[in-house]
Structures are given as C-alpha cells and as structure tokens.
C-alpha cells in the first residue's frame, strides 16, 4: 500500500498575543501591564496525504490553513502533535527537507524585486544545486507552459501581479520538488493567468507526480486543480474527502429549468410547483433525494406540451462552502 508523504496527527498551534485597548489611556495601561491571551490557530487536526495527490485546504480567513502550511514547511514550530513530511520533521529537520519542496505564499515573493526574474532563477540554481542540463530543461518547460518567456528578463517590480505570480510559480518548480505548497497562488491573477497556472499545475502533477497542497478562496481553482478537499474552520477539520463527495453530501437541492413552446396555464406539473422565470420558461426545485430523471421523462412524454430547452442547475462549490461556513448545512 502506498505510504503517505505527509502525515499529521493531533497537530495544534497556539499563539500568545497581547491585548491592547484603544485610546491613549489604554495604551498606557498595556505598557505597564499586558493582558496576554492565547489563540488556538490549529486545534488537533489529523490527515495524511499520499504522493501525487492534489489536495485543497479550504477555510475562511483565520481558519488555520496558512498556519497548517507554515507548520508543514518548517516555518512555525507546532505546539503539540505529530507532523512528518517525507519522513522528516519540518521544523527540526528543515535543511534536509526544504530541497524537496517548493512554496508560494501569494502575499509574499521569492523573486528579488529590483532585478530581472531570471537572476533569481540562477540564484535558485546555485542554492538547490541544480545541474546545468536539468536547469535548461526545466526552464524550457516553465517558460512555455507558463508563457513567461518575455517576463523573465524584466525587473520584477515592473511586472504585473499575474506576470510576477507566473514567474514565482516557475521558480519553485526549477528544483523539481516532490511537494508544492501553494498558499493563494492565484490571488489577484486574471482569468488568462489563472488558466495558465491551472494547466501548468496539472501538467507538472501528471508528468512528475508532484504532490500539490493548495489553499485558495477561489473555488473554481480548487475544483479545477484538486481532487480532494480538507475544510478547516476554527482550527478544526470539518470535511476531508473527494471534492465530488462534498457535492454529494452537501448539496441538498437542484433546480430544473424548462422552456416550453408556449406559456403554461397551470401552477404545478406532475405534482411539483412551477415558478415562472420567463415568458414560457419555468423553474422547479428538487430535493436531492427526488428523481429528476423520472420527472423529466414524464414531461417529455406528455404530448400536450412541447419542451424546447432543459437545464439542471447545481449549487456551485462556492455556494456549498459558504453554506457550510454559515452553518446552514450539516
């Protein structure tokens, strides 16, 4: 059986923060006596990730996603619990581990700001001890896949956010990492850029079996890139399974849109309420357990009505996730 390359068991991280009141008097008070409060950012989470998996960490701001990624990359020291990445402890064995992974934090940059991006690529080549032929080979791949050929020789500060992010992404693949941690990699990137990034990640995953752990607020990205989702809320895991199951388990209604050749003079159809949304267009809401197929067959077989168009609308992932966070679902 395939062994997981990331193992997390009962992992927790707490931060001690000083409370500071507003206004001058409160500032003075906190200067003399500080109120300390402990914030649990990650609370006893457990999961395993196998090689080649594409997993999304989903959660609201402050849910604990970035803290989890920072513990997995050795940036933060876990407060409690077990953690292992490629059989190494990320914090204690940082230098052994970090040649094997690549990280992008959408809010920060790895590229040197005032020099062309290609200079940072050469610096990485030295740091990660990349052989000349491997470097050239991978440079060719990232240049064409990410469409960054013309950006590499421009000072990074002159690139747009999307162009810079593509250059950043190319950089972290130069040493052929086994795992990539991508924290909001498409933040502020336009649709064309996002498409390039998605295609590139899928290509790298397929070709090199690179494991991808993605955190993003963009559910379209999550759906396009990942197969599995881990939903974190308040530092705890709410869901950990295939994204398809998320839809199966959390969608409780579907909407059927029907367009007829002429308006209907009835309020119900085969026992279901009709809601008019156009001249001869209607919508019917179905519970998840109801059989839309059987209903549709009855409608199509009814010779008194001519159906011109049919569409079934499912809640999208954004909607599902929002409902989960708002506590509207189980």
């Amino acid at each position, binding site marked *: 059986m395939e062994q997981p390359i990331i193992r997390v068991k009962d992992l927790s991280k707490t*931060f001690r923060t000083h409370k500071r009141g507003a206004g001058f008097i409160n500032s003075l008070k906190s200067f003399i006596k500080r109120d300390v409060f402990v914030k649990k950012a990650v609370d006893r989470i457990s999961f395993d990730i196998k090689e080649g998996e594409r997993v999304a960490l989903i959660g609201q701001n402050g849910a604990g996603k*970035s803290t989890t990624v*920072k513990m997995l*990359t*050795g*940036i*933060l*020291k876990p407060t409690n619990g077990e953690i292992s990445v490629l059989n190494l402890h990320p*914090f204690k064995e*940082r*230098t052994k581990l*970090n*040649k094997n*992974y690549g*990280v992008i*934090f*959408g*809010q*920060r*940059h*790895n590229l*040197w*700001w*005032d*020099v062309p991006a290609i*200079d*940072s690529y*050469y*610096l990485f*080549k*030295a*740091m*990660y*001890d990349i052989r000349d032929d491997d470097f050239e080979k991978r440079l060719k791949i990232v240049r064409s896949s990410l469409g960054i050929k013309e950006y590499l020789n421009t*000072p990074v500060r002159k690139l747009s956010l999307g162009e810079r992010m593509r250059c950043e992404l190319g950089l972290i693949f130069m040493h052929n990492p086994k795992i990539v941690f991508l*924290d*909001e990699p498409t933040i502020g990137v336009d649709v064309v850029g996002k498409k390039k990034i998605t295609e590139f990640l899928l290509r790298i995953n397929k070709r090199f079996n690179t494991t991808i752990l993605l955190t993003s607020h963009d559910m379209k990205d999550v759906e396009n890139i990942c197969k599995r989702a881990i939903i974190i809320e308040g530092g705890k895991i709410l869901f950990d399974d295939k994204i398809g199951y998320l839809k199966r388990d959390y969608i409780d209604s579907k909407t059927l849109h029907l367009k007829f050749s002429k308006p209907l003079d009835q309020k119900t159809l085969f026992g279901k309420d009709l809601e008019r949304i156009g001249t001869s267009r209607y919508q019917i809401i179905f519970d998840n357990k109801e059989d839309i197929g059987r209903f549709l067959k009855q409608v199509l077989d009814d010779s008194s009505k001519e159906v011109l168009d049919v569409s079934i609308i499912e809640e999208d992932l954004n909607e599902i996730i929002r409902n989960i966070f708002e506590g509207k679902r189980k």
Partner: protein
Amino acid sequence: MNLRVVFETFKIALKDRMAYRTDFIADVLIGPLIFLVVQFLWTNIYTYNNITEINGFTLNDSISYLAVSTIVGYFVWTWVTTTVGMKIKRGDFARYVIMPINFLDYTLVELFGRKVPSMLIKAPLLFLLLKIFFNVHVADLPHFILFIGSMVFSYLLFNIFMFIMGLLTFWQESFWVFNMLGSAIIEFFSGWLLPIDFYPSFMKPIIEILPFRHIYYSPIMIFLEKYSISSSIQVLVSQFFSVIILYLLARLILRLGRAKFTSQGG
C-alpha cells in the same frame, strides 16, 4: 553555504543595489559631513590650546584617524538590524526558512554584495579628496594589506553583532530600539570618532575585553602604522576569534528565536 551560492547571492545583491542611482549618489555626498564637523572641532582644540600632541596623537594623526574612520564606516556599516528586524516583524523571515540556506550567512553575503559599490567607488573617491585637502596619512603596502584584511573582520564583527540585535525582534518587536542600542554600543566602545587612547583609564580594561574596538580602532591604527607588522597580525588573529565567537552566538540566538517566530501577515 557553498561558494556558488555565495557568488550568486553576491552578484544579485550587487545588481539590486545598483538599480537606484540617486540613492547611491546621495550616499556619497552625505558620508563626509560628520567628518567635516569633527575635523573643525579637532583643528580648534589643537590650535586654540596651542598643543602639538594629545595622547600621542598630533593634529594630523587625529584628522587622519577620523578620515580612516569614515572610510571604515563605508566598508562596515549596513542596515542589518532594521532589515532583520523588519523581516521578523512582518513575517518575511518565512521566505528564508523555506530556502536551503542559513539566514545569517545569506544576510552577510547579501549585505556585502550591496556594500561593494561603496567599497570600490565611494571609499577610494573620498580618500583621495581627504588626502588632497587634509593631507591624510597613507599606510605603506604591508600595513595597507593588513588593513584590508582587518576591515573584512570589521565588516563581519559589525554585521554579526548588529544581526544579533535584529534577532531580538523575535522576543520584542521594537527593532528600532535594538538598532539604536547596537549603534550606541558600537559608537561608544569601538573608537568610532575618538581613538580609545583618549578614553579614561578605568574604561580601558572593559574596552579590551569587548570585541568592538576591532571594528573601528584596530583597523584604523593599522592603517596609521601605529601598530608594527607583528602587532597588526596579532590584531587580525584576535579579530578572527572575536568573529568566531560572535558568529556562534548569532547561530544560537537564531535557533532559539526561530522557535518564537509567529510569521505574521499571511
């Protein structure tokens, strides 16, 4: 860090520094101002009191001391405390943790790369001006070579010490305080403006124990040929051991501090 990484880091830092020409020119012009002010002071002290020597230093010695101190300042001085402090406070330190490098080594090489324009253009230019206008003393070749070697250690001592001051941001976020504290310690104990020979005698044992005199006083004294060749070599050996001790201390504090890192800001 292997030599290829050192070379590439140095190269990129140098290129990065050269990106802003106005900064660079402003830096060249601001440097000599303190020199001019203190030089006026020295000239007045010597001429008003009608004295030729104070603690073995003639007026020309004192002005030369100050001139070489300005040159040493160009070589050693960096914003390391605030750079490190800011990276820790704003969370950018994370960027260095995820790379297969040591933050201390990388910072020292990066800052050195940024220093090169000062070293190769500003320092010789200023020294030439000082020689023409103030007849500053110039070392003979053996002393000059030893002076260069001594300055490499000065650079390391200054920057490792100020790096440690920056690391204190792991425990207390006000890195400006540490910058001021570190600068004050160096300015006071290193003989930055004044030769240590001018300090009260009760302070000399303290200054002898601390490594800071090796940042300004020792290389300047080598350049002014106040030390013989063998004494200068002894100074270099002492500088070397001070660097090793401070380096190990910095590594230890970095290790302890990393566990305190909170990685703020996303």
